């Protein structure tokens, strides 16, 4: 089966998922991202790499934060950025996803940054571009359903490497709602590809996918056991709609059992870092003392996120 992310030379054509992405490409993106971090410190925060290119932020699901980071990244590469919130316009008029894509292609798009509520939507677009002979257009998955959020996964890996230097000696813990989290799926795929020897997932059985062990992780239902000796603690966001109901009894109980407090964090290594993809629910998955404490690297994650997205876009546009 053709890997839809790679072109016929084995180079990155689209960034759709970190699952199935070769280590060489994953590593190259992290390497390329490093020099991009420096651009933010210049007087003119702009590189000419994507000058004259049109990047369409195609958001079928609203997310101001993610859209903004992609927009900043593209603009720092001198691209023209066009933001489309499709959820509110054409799909309601009966236009299909592929109609929308065809229309934008006719406007000479060079790159689509796609956010969609259905798992696999960016694959459909990539497949359609291939089938219609438009292999010069690139697709970046900015989050599809529960499936993947590869740039978030990459910036998390960049952050880990920045603070921990190596991957092969780490214990990394992912805590929370793995079942509904595209971020978690991307993190787990990247961590295993990069050779992290021990990846643990911690959470109630209702929030872990069936057969999650097959993704190469150890499952801990006990938060304390999961945190013991960890180098990196990656917290996941708990969506409001899952807090009361058939999956969890209440946010209070969730915080009591799985919330990250200073006492629980003390079980991890003293130099362990704490990450969160944002936006945080303080007092639900994370205590404010931890979120604002010295071990949290949540703001560096945001900064690195721009460099990583610049790296991805410039790598794609050059292939």
């Amino acid at each position, binding site marked *: 089966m053709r890997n839809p992310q790679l072109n016929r030379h084995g*180079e990155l054509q689209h960034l759709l998922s970190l699952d199935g992405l070769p280590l060489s490409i994953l590593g*190259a993106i992290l*390497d*390329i991202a*490093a*020099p991009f971090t*420096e651009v933010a410190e*210049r*007087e*003119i925060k*702009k*590189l*000419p*790499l994507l000058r004259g290119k049109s990047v369409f932020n195609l958001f079928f699901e609203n997310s101001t934060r993610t859209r903004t980071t992609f927009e900043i990244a593209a603009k720092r590469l001198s691209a023209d950025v066009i933001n489309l919130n499709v959820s509110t316009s054409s799909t309601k008029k009966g236009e299909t996803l592929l109609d929308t894509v065809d229309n934008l292609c006719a406007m000479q798009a060079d790159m689509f940054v796609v956010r969609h509520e259905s798992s696999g939507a960016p694959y459909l677009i990539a497949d359609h571009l291939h089938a219609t002979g438009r292999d010069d257009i690139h697709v970046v998955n900015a989050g599809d359903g529960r499936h993947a959020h590869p740039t978030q996964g990459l910036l998390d890996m960049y952050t880990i490497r920045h603070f921990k230097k190596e991957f092969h000696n780490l214990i990394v813990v992912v805590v929370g709602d793995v079942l509904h989290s595209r971020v978690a799926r991307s993190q787990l795929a990247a961590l295993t590809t990069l050779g992290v020897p021990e990846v643990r997932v911690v959470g109630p059985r209702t929030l872990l996918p069936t057969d999650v062990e097959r993704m190469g992780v150890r499952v801990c239902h006990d938060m304390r056991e999961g945190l013991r000796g960890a180098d990196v603690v990656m917290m996941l966001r708990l969506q409001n709609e899952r807090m009361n109901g058939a999956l969890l009894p209440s946010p209070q109980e969730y915080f009591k059992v799985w919330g990250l407090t200073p006492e629980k964090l003390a079980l991890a290594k003293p130099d362990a870092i704490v990450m969160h993809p944002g936006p945080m629910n303080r007092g639900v998955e994370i205590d404010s003392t931890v979120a604002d404490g010295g071990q949290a690297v949540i703001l560096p994650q945001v900064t690195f996120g721009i460099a990583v997205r610049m790296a991805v876009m*410039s*790598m794609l546009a*050059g*292939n």
Partner: protein
Amino acid sequence: MPIELPNAETLLARLVDQIRPDVSERTALVGIHTGGAWLAERLHRLLGVKAPLGTIDVSFYRDDYGSRGLHPRPQRSGIPFDVESADIIIVDDVLYTGRTTRAALNELFDYGRPGRVDLAVLCDRHGRELPIGARYCAYTLPQALPASRSLRLSRDATGTLSLRLIDA
């Protein structure tokens, strides 16, 4: 016909002699990765330049990005001094088409507005495609090299520099 290449260390000494009379309080050096950065490192020491040394990787500014893609391992650019009004000497190992210099100039100007910019190179191999010349140049090849050959600076374990011809 084999081409005799001069000793890079001798050329370096010649370059120092050329630049020294112009060095002032405001002089700053910026080396282009990778060969230019090695040279700039040596020049910085030999000339006793006060401003900290800057380096530039022009991967992000190259005009052949559209056809050749991104360089697989770009290096971090670092300009640790205030570019505004500085007299900057861009240092590179070999001057060829002038496109690298153009990219370096573009990048430099994204950091601020220098007072003056000069170019220092170890070797000019001819073949310019842009109106660019080096104010300091230690050696000019007697004749142009064919495009299939690449002239590169290398550095051994002891830090000694040498010029090498490679078939591209």
